[in-house]
Every structure is written in C-alpha cells, then in structure tokens.
C-alpha cells in the first residue's frame, strides 16, 4: 500500500470449510488472483475484476465475490466511482478507458413502455397451435410493382436480407472478440436462419463457409476489405458510427496484432490497427452515396448495403439522408450499446437512447414518404424479447443483439475486455483462454437464446391478435407509456397507459 493506493473494489471470499484445495481457481484466473505457494491458497483481491470465472468453475462452490465494504463516505454528488476515476487520472494522466455499454442510470425507455393484448373486441391467438409468422425481409421495396409485357409481375426486387426471426448478431470484430466467439456466432446464425456481422476486423478465411449468413463490414480502416471479402457477405455494412462511442474511432494496439489477426485484417504483424472516426473519404452526405454505389458496383448490385450509425441528436435528418443515398438498410446503434473499448466519458455522455432515436427516425421517414425505401435495424442494449417486440412496434424491422449474445457465451459483464484477459475466452486473443470457449457449445447456447426469444415474441404477438410480425411494425397503438412526460410520449409517438 502507499499514499495513493486505492482499496480494491472487490473481495474474493473463500469458504475454508468447503474448499478442497483442488487448485482449479489458480488455473482458471488469468489475472493471477489466486496463488498457491505449496502450502497456502491465497487471494490477491486487488487483481479481481469480478468476472466470476473462479466462482463458476469451483467444484465445491467455495468462492464468492463481494463488493469490498471498505467504503468512502457516502455522497450523492461525489460518488465513489467518480472519486476513484480522479485518483486514476491524477496517477496516470490518461484518458479513462472502459468496455461494454454504459452502466450509468439513464432512463431505460423499454421499461416504461407497455404492450397491448386483445380482448373481447378482437381475438388473441395461441402461437403454439395456430399459424404464427416471425419471418422478416429487410431491404428496399419498390415504389410501384413492375409488370412484364404479359401483364404479370416481373417479381424483381432489390437485394433483400431474409431472416427467419427479427434478430441479427451485431458487429463484433475479430480482434475485439476471439476466433472461437466468431465461430459460435457464425454457426448459430446459420442454424437460426439469421446473420452475424464480421465487425471491422475482416473475415477469417475459415469462416467463408458461413458466407450466406455473414454480413461483412466496411469500416473506416477498411481492414481486410477486398473484392473476395465483399462478395462473400450476404450484405455489406458501412460502419459510420457505433452507439457506444459516437464520433470516436477504434484502436487495436500492435501488441494484439498477432499472426492470425494480421492475416485477417491484411496489415503487418505488430502494427497498430487504427480505425479513424470518420471514413476519410466521407466528409459529407454525398460522399456516402458515392461509397454506397462503389460497393454496389463491385458486387454487381447483388448485395444489400447497410449503413450503421450511432444515435445522436440529429439522427432523424441523418437517417433521411442515408435513405436517399441508395442504402438499402439503416442500422441505428443507441448510446447504451457495447464495445470492446471506448473512452469512458464518451461512452457515458455521448449519444441518445435507441428508443427515442428509432421512434424519431421511423416517423421522419414516414413524414417524408420514404419509409419503405429502407429497412431499419435497431440496436444498443436490446436485453430481452420484450425489448424486441417494443422496438418493432416503434418502427424497427429487426434488431441487432450483441451484449445478450456474449452473455449467452459466458460473459459476466465484468467490463474489463480492454485488458484482453477475458477468462471466458470471448474478448481475448490468448490461445489458452480462447480454448475455454467451445464454439459448438457456444453456438448451441446462442441458438437456445434466440429460439426462446422467438417463442416469447410469438406469445406477445398472439396476445395482441397479430399472427404475422409485419403487422406489428410501427404499430404504435400497441404501445402505451407509463411514467413518461408529455414530451417523451410525443417523441415516442405513443399515448399514456389509460388513454
């Protein structure tokens, strides 16, 4: 200890009655919390990040992690987190860096929206026994149907993404997450009939087999972007922004760029991988149109183009511009979205909630008469099937899931991804840690999660008397707000419960 030492946040508590000294915890904790010197098992709680790996793996359930009760004096204004952040910055002079979505207590609008059920005047539907459809088709729809000379429809459509259920796996780059995590996501997407997203780290050659279920991302660094990559995807996503860090780029330090990452990103080993904040060839909306069409041309107009943006203040106008730029789908990422690493202040203070952004974008596109020219994917902390149903009622065609997917793979939201020492084998490149995540088992857990959510969505749809999910899209009358101000209700476009 010393003058500037801060008491650790967590304490590892071992029950000596139950502990059998199997030393499993020593092997499992990559942070070196548990040590055995031949006679004594000790814990250095200062190294603990509360990831629960040792807790889960202990065969005797002898371990638990608690918040250390060495507390600073209570203060609603200067809370202990804020104080400790100042200590850190005084010590280091550095910009605070965090992982995963903001934990701050901002309002969660999903929890203030209620769904309807049909009763008396309109029947509800039993989805287990009666037909119920959650299939979604994402993409641009034509303004008028085209007929051939025989008067029959030509049935030509701009390229679409077909989903068996209204959920996709959001972008997480190979580099921020492990090879095994990507494999689990790819396998699950294939089995479920949905898609996963390569993120900005390129597409590993082993995963080209999953092309029909892959969305390839073109981010500002253009890592791993070549003609084969573009044609491998079922769709191409241009990453303009990310909900967790609007306006900020990404940075994978050279130390993490090993042989495999180097090959996938097509950069030299050991060199930094920097994704600048803007695409340095898109400084205005018309440049985006140029990039969209360059990608369409390179892929012979066969792939839908997604443009992913962070939810910021003028998101409605931005979305309108994107819709007119030729993009087929807009993906909006709310400020609560997760990340491998982002400056804390940006993550906690920049951007707006996805619920408000989605409602505003959907309404603006309808006001301008162009809603059917783009599909909308909403993301940024979709935590349950209820959030999905509400997002669709607000206007989304489908949602992006990321944090929930990682939780299914074993993540315990300890939020220390940026160290690269993920004990669950997810947010790490260390081979001995990556091996802990079995891709087949991970895929099974993802399939379980999405299947369960899909069934729950069907139950909610049936309750509302709807048997095809497109009838819920933008159906604001199926929502009511509770505990919301008049202005919040107005932006969301819903009435208050009781009205």
């Amino acid at each position, binding site marked *: 200890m010393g003058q500037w030492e801060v008491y650790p946040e967590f304490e590892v508590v071992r029950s000596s009655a139950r502990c059998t000294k199997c030393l499993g915890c020593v092997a499992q904790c990559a942070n070196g919390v548990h040590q055995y010197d031949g006679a004594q098992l000790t814990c250095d709680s200062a190294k603990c990040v509360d990831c629960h790996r040792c807790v889960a793996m202990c065969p005797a359930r002898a371990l638990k992690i608690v918040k250390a009760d060495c507390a600073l004096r209570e203060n609603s204004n200067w809370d202990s987190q804020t104080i400790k952040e100042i200590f850190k910055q005084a010590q280091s002079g550095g910009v605070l860096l965090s992982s995963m979505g903001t934990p701050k207590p901002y309002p969660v609008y999903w929890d203030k929206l209620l769904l309807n059920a049909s009763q008396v005047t309109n*029947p509800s539907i039993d989805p287990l026994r009666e037909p119920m*459809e959650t299939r979604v088709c994402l993409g641009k729809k034509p303004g008028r*149907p085209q007929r051939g000379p025989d008067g029959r429809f030509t049935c030509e459509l701009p390229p679409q993404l077909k989903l068996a259920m209204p959920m996709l796996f959001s972008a997480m780059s190979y580099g921020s997450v492990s090879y095994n995590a990507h494999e689990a996501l790819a396998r699950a997407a294939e089995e479920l009939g949905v898609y996963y997203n390569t993120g900005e780290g390129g597409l590993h050659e082993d995963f080209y087999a999953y092309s029909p279920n892959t969305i390839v991302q073109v981010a500002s660094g253009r890592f791993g972007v070549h003609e084969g990559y573009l044609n491998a995807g079922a769709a191409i996503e241009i990453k303009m922004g990310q909900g967790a860090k609007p306006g900020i780029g990404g940075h994978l330090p050279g130390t993490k760029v090993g042989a495999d990452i180097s090959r996938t990103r097509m950069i030299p080993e050991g060199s930094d991988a920097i994704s600048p904040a803007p695409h340095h060839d898109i400084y205005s909306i018309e440049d985006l149109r140029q990039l969209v069409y360059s990608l369409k041309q390179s892929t012979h107009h066969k792939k839908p183009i997604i443009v992913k943006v962070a939810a910021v203040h003028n998101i409605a106008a931005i979305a309108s511009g994107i819709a007119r730029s030729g993009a087929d789908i807009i993906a909006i990422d709310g400020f609560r979205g997760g990340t491998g690493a982002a400056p804390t202040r940006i993550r906690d203070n920049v951007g707006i909630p996805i619920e408000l952004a989605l409602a505003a974008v959907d309404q603006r596109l309808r006001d301008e008469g162009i809603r059917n020219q783009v599909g909308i994917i909403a993301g940024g902390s979709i935590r349950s099937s209820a959030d999905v149903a509400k997002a669709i009622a607000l206007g989304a065609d489908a949602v992006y899931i990321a944090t929930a997917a990682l939780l299914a793979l074993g993540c315990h939201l300890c939020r220390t991804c940026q160290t690269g020492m993920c004990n669950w084998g997810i947010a790490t490149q260390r081979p001995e840690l990556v091996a802990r995540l079995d891709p087949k088992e991970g895929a099974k857990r993802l399939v379980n999660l999405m299947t369960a959510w899909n069934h729950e969505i069907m139950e909610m749809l049936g309750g509302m*008397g709807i048997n095809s999910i497109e009838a819920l899209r*933008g*159906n604001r009358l199926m929502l009511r707000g509770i505990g919301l101000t008049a202005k919040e209700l107005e932006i969301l476009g819903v009435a208050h419960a009781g009205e």
Partner: protein
Amino acid sequence: MIRPELFEGQVRIPSGCAISAVISREGRLISGQAIVDSMRPMHERSNGLGGGFAGYGIYPEYKDFFALHIFYDTDEARAAVEAHLRAVLEIVRAENIPTRKHPAITAEPFIWRYFVAPLRSVLHSCQQDEEEFIARLAMRVNTSYPGAYVFSSGKNMGVFKAVGYPEDVGEFYRLEEYSGYCWTAHGRYPTNTPGWWGGAHPFALLDRSIVHNGEISSYDCNRRTIEMYGYKCTLQTDTEVITYIADFLQRKQGLTLEEIASVIAAPFWSTIERQPEGKSRELAYLRTVYSSLLITGPFSIILGFRGGLMALNDRLKLRSMVVGEKDDKVYIASEEAAIRAVEPNAENIWAPAGGQPVVVRVREGAY
C-alpha cells in the same frame, strides 16, 4: 347533432357488425327497399349506434357529375364549405337530401348533396385528374372545415348513413325511392357511444365504398403506412384505412382486385410455398413489397365501386359471410337469413374461404 367529448377520430372505437349487399350482373335496377329488408333479420348484430347504405346507379340523370353528400353541424359550416366549393367546382344542383321523420333517428345534422364537376381551369392549373382533385377536396373539407363532413364523393352513387339501426336509417333516408344496380349495407355495434353520424359505415372515397365487420390488429401499422401517400386517417376507424388502402392499390399502384386481396389477406408463408411455382413467386413478391398493408385480425369487407363489388374475408375467416344468387342478382351477407329475406329462392349458397375474393362485375355497358 350531438358532439360528445369522445367522437370518432379522437379515440379508437372497435366494433362488430352486420353487412349485406345485392348486385345485378345485368345492371338491372333494384329498389333500396330490398337492401333495407335484408338487414332486418340481422338486427341482433348491431346495437343501434350506426347503420348505413351505399347505392350505385342511383343518380342516372347526373351520372357524369360527382355527387357530394355532406353533413353540417351548423349553417356557418355550410356557408364556409359552399363558398369553397363554388370557387373550384361547377355545381349543377344543390339540395337537402330528402328524409322522413323517424322516432329512432334523432339529433340529425344538416344533410346536403351537390352534383358537381371540377372547373376545367382549376384542374388545369393544379395538373390533377378529376378523381385525384375530388379525393383531395373531400379530404381537405374533412380536415380543415370544422362542423362539416363529406361522406360520399362518387359519380352516380351515394352513401346514406346515420346513428341508428340500419332498418331505421333506411326508412329515414326514404331508400325505397331510389333504385340502383348495386347496394351495400352495414349495421354497427361499436363499444363506445360515438354519437357521430360520420363514423357510421359505409366509408367512401370517390366511388369506392367499404362496409366492414370486425376489428383489425394491424390498424396503426396500416395507417402510418398509407398516410405516407397523401391519405389522412381522421376517423381512426378500420373502415377508413381499408378504403384508403383499396384506393391506393387500385388507383395508384394499378393492382387488380384479386391482387389487392392477395395483399391485404395475404396467405401464410407455408401456404404460399405450397402453391405452383409462378403463383408462389407472385404471392411472395406482393407480400414482400406491400408487407405493411397486410391486414391482420378479423374482417369481412364488401368493397363497392362503379360497376361491381368485391367481398373478402381475412385469411383466417374469423367473420362469417355467405354468397347466394338468383338469375342476374348476386347476394352477399353476414347471415343466410338476410339473403333469404330478400330472395327466398336464392340458389348456390356458399361461403368463400378466408382470403378468397369474390368479385362480381356488372356487364360492360350496362351501368
């Protein structure tokens, strides 16, 4: 006319109901009495809070003019609207719609009709065809002129509706004095007290009229989609949105009636996939392009238009509908008893399947 706090348009009023229609394939004229009589056996399906009729071919002397039927709360409302009409229309005749006093029909508004044509100069300057012009005029009066409501706006057809049982409404409007080649009728069972005549069915825009039984769960999805194309859903009723969807798909997207049925009552994907190749592709195409115009929830509708009608149930057939015929006449109703009340010897009584459109057209030249 009562204007209680909650009237149509401020609150969503679900309803269950009775519908009926009769049409002559040869264009022979049928007295309005027949359609009124068909509603009597179905008295129990309504609750007296709305009844109405649409007649086609009822104004032969003015068949080339649009017949505007308008409700007015006050003389001032009428003066304001008439001033606007005179500025843009040629009005060849304007009068009260004849009615008779009926004990069950009360608080009636002023009810007027005008036979009009848009002034050529006006049409030319705003570069619209006459149908688009009249449609917009009707919607503008209904949104911008308080106390006035255009409830019928087609050529050689008219809607007659009120708050009351349909049999009583038919007597009130003296429908026995009209004859037309096609009639549709509706009795309403709303679960609030709208007290407003404009909310009864049929809902009409130009020569398209809809009578509807049921309550749809996709309403707000459909409304927010159709409003992108210039329609204003002021009534918050299912019938209004269905009428606009039918008008949009037919007039602006060029779909046939059967194609419209495949959009609003699209079959399930599992059913589409079991169809023959070409049909399967077309059904999938329509369902993908017009996914937001799919209507879920129970409905049976009769869409009337100049020269014919289409009857359609939702794809699960959650409401009843029977069709029968005799000679040149085709009858459609929520109950067989309604058909037999008008034609005791009706033949070939059958019930269309869910999503299966029944289109009846009058012989070309006969109307």
